[in-house]
């Protein structure tokens, strides 16, 4: 079973969200998602300053096998992208919850994070996916 930190929130499309406590969130893809994708060879990062709807297309992760879309877990503005992934996309596989983060977002409504899945609820989603 993949690793699911309890302090994170999750989406059905396999993103994780961390509340940074300063009005921003950090997001990435789950350990389950990186395992399913296989070796990540390219991450198309969102442009800083871009405003997204909840569920809007935020970027793309490409593995050797295929391309997968990334979706915004919350509506808001991109405030930072993890440009280290441009040269080292495999970091998403090696450290999905830490060095492999994708972007930081300033949600228009931070409270909406409470509507996302907790680790137990996401575990059920990931299980059905297998």
């Amino acid at each position: 079973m993949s690793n699911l930190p309890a302090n994170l929130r999750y989406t059905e499309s396999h993103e994780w969200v961390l509340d940074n406590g300063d009005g921003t969130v950090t997001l990435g893809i789950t350990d389950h998602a990186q395992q399913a994708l296989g070796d990540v060879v390219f991450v198309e990062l969102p442009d800083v300053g871009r405003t997204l709807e909840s569920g809007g297309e935020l970027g793309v992760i490409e593995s050797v096998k295929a391309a997968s879309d990334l979706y915004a877990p919350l509506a808001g503005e991109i405030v930072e992208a993890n440009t280290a992934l441009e040269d080292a996309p495999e970091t998403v596989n090696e450290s999905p919850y830490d060095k492999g983060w994708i972007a930081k977002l300033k949600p228009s409504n931070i409270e909406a994070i409470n509507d996302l899945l907790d680790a137990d609820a996401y575990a059920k989603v990931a299980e059905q996916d297998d």
Partner: protein
Amino acid sequence: MSELNKTPLYALHVELGGKMVPFAGYEMPVQFPLGVKKEHEHTRSACGLFDVSHMGQLLIKGPDPAAALETLVSADIVGLEVGMQRYALFTGDEGGILDDLMVVRGEGHLYLVVNAACRDQDLAHLRVGLGQDYHVETLDRGLLALQGPRAADVMKRVCPEACDMVFMQHGRFTLAGFPVWISRSGYTGEDGFEISVEKDDTDGLARRLLDEPEVEAIGLGARDSLRLEAGLCLYGHDIDTTTTPVEAGLIWAVGKARRHGGERVGGFPGADLILHQIDARDHDRKRVGLVAEGRAPVREGTELFDEEGHRIGEVTSGSFGPTVGKPVAMGYVSVAHAEAGNRVFAEVRGKRLPMTVARMPFVTPGYYRG
């Protein structure tokens, strides 16, 4: 949707943790726990074992089967020596490609390996084309490919006689007690062997080969990236009924004896058009290799443009090439843009990404020619 077929190695794939996907009507492993990239790298540096039992194995018997098959394929089969294998194309009346295949010349028979998705159609095509004097049958056998620079080291231990063969040679052997047919060939760009084995022996043979320390089980994902780096076509993607052998850069699959000035000119479907294209070189498009300047993989179906923004072609296969270390692709572009070193632009998610036309194969082949 009809139920998917299983190869004789289905249970082994599941046991090894293979991720099973539908492919050409079969349930096949796309990858094992090692993952596509490491499986690819392992095959390039050591030795990979591939289940290709889904491919069609056909036997043709009848009077002078080599001359008969030449009525359907553009290759020189009459000139093929007994015990040798050759790449061939079933051509259509319009000059397109109906399937690509391997032909082995045996004593009084031909042994063919065809694509899984084309097998039934090829069988019907052969039966109609060759007529009732010929017996064409599908062999219910397993087929394994042992590929990589260490494949011969493995073979030396289990069937040393097979190591005397050079690239594209074929013979019958006993491998670790199993009666097998082996050819020194493959579809990865590496030295290696393709081993046809009785259906009930397939699992035992695969387990015996996997016992060797160099050998890892490899899935379809790595098979695709390996053949792409080797510049080899995937039927239904890089070649099909709409592409001619000349457009596809497969003129070498039209035997010299079958071309103008040869001993047996034409005589295969679409020969007029294909031989005209070989002489006149007036075809509009050509299959080329492409290497991306950036890191984003450029996939099948991506449109290609020139510097001025005119559409010049389309990608037919594309992935990240683990050995090349860059995204690689093949596709068709107008002949004016097909020269190696030429810059083209691939439209990926609204952006025009620069790519360079490159010679194929993208990697140096390791074929053993003695």
